[in-house]
């Protein structure tokens, strides 16, 4: 076990030297989580908006389901995706288990309910404000949803950010379906878990610092964007 100061020293050394392994892990993490958030937005935003705008049988049940799924334990999600992708599972033939794609799938499963549920609330509020005007202009259905999604774009960025936060910090699910294979499916969180268990705190700390830095960067960026939008009355 390294002492605390040495671990920090090693961590900053790895970051400042642009260590290739470190960069590879960070890039894979970003690739997996950003892909998952993008897919989750493509699925979750229309679902959330539809639940906000349409009145249909089972709508309340859908909302309850989305809210419940927001708290889905990652290891359970990992297990379910594992069962689907394993050789005995219905999607086993695709050979996706222990690949980055499997990690994107499981993160998408975790993030989509968050994006759908938060988007539903946000779009519902906007819909209350716009409803009569849009109907007066002759807008119905999908065109109403498109208008609401576009006009809520800055607030929805915050929703996407919440999804990214969940995805990039996740460890239990991606380790089940990704396997934490070196140079293949090793991401920041799984590496931190592995290196910590091995007592190699330098790399773990370096990744932890980058993880926090990324979080600050993304949060700060979205906050700045939103503040600009509010100042310009676009939010």
């Amino acid at each position, binding site marked *: 076990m390294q002492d605390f100061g040495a671990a920090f020293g090693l961590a900053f050394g790895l970051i400042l030297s642009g260590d290739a392994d470190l960069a590879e892990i960070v890039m894979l993490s970003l690739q997996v989580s950003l892909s998952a958030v993008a897919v989750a937005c493509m699925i979750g935003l229309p679902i959330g908006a539809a639940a906000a705008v349409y009145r249909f049988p089972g709508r309340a049940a859908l909302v309850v389901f989305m809210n419940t799924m927001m708290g889905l334990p990652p290891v359970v999600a990992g297990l379910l995706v594992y069962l689907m992708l394993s050789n005995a599972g219905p999607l086993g033939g695709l050979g996706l288990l222990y690949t980055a794609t499997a990690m994107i799938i499981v993160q998408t499963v975790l993030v989509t309910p968050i994006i759908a549920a938060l988007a539903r609330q946000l779009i519902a509020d906007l819909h209350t404000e716009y409803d*009569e005007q849009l*109907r*007066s*202009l*002759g807008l119905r259905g999908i065109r109403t949803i498109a208008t609401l999604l*576009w*006009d*809520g774009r800055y607030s929805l960025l915050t929703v996407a950010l919440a999804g990214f936060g969940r995805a990039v910090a996740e460890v239990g699910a991606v380790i089940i379906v990704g396997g934490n294979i070196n140079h293949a499916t090793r991401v920041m969180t799984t590496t931190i878990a592995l290196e910590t268990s091995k007592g190699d705190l330098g790399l773990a700390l370096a990744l932890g610092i980058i993880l926090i830095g990324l979080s600050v960067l993304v949060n700060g960026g979205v906050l700045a964007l939103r503040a600009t939008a509010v100042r310009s009355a*676009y939010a």
Partner: protein
Amino acid sequence: MPDATAGFAEQALDVRRPSAILPLEARNLVFEAGGRRLIDGIDLRLDAGCRTVVMGPNGAGKSLLLRLLHGLIEPSAGSVLWQGKPADRTVRRRQAMVFQRPVLLRRSVSANMHHALRANGFSRQEARDRARDWLAYAGLSGFADQPARVLSGGEQQRLAVARALSLGPEVLFLDEPTASLDPASTLGIEEIIQKAAASGTKIVLITHDIGQARRIADEVVFLYRGRVEAFDQALCFFDAPGSAKARAFIEGRIVL
């Protein structure tokens, strides 16, 4: 107010068009909510060619009536008929509404116009041209690229009226469009409304402002507790109201 580039809007407003959807009739119109009858069996016929002002104390059902006529809400009973038929897609496209608080999208001024025009089937090019001309007509050309929500209250309402008129409606419903505006902004809106009326657009306007009603109205519908208490030509209504409640309202006495 209109500037030199408002060509299309000026032309559109200079043409008096025959109405293809009026008269508008409410037949035994009823609207109930929470066990209360808020619109109580209204029978009304609004013809083309005159400006109708709807008045009445708070809670009389004026805004509800406008929303029922415009088709934003469904009546509990009775019907709204356009040339004797329920509103279809064509009829819905030939009417527009301006609300007391303008609802503007979180977009630029021109994007607000463009969105409404595109939603009503205008091509990209037509929408661009119409938006430009109507913004010029409303004196808002200089604000085209600004976010709509940073405009002043008067400018926002002018934008809302220009947006509604740019669709070429035969009937324009206005729900207290100048309620929170200063006198200059009010006159600006009234000027646009009067020009639209002169071009043949049927105006149905709610106002509490008796001065405005006198300036605009050809006929007045006075509502009281969800019923039509008086419906008369404007001169008759203001000079010799046939209803004691309408007289009390005009004289500024409280109508409970």
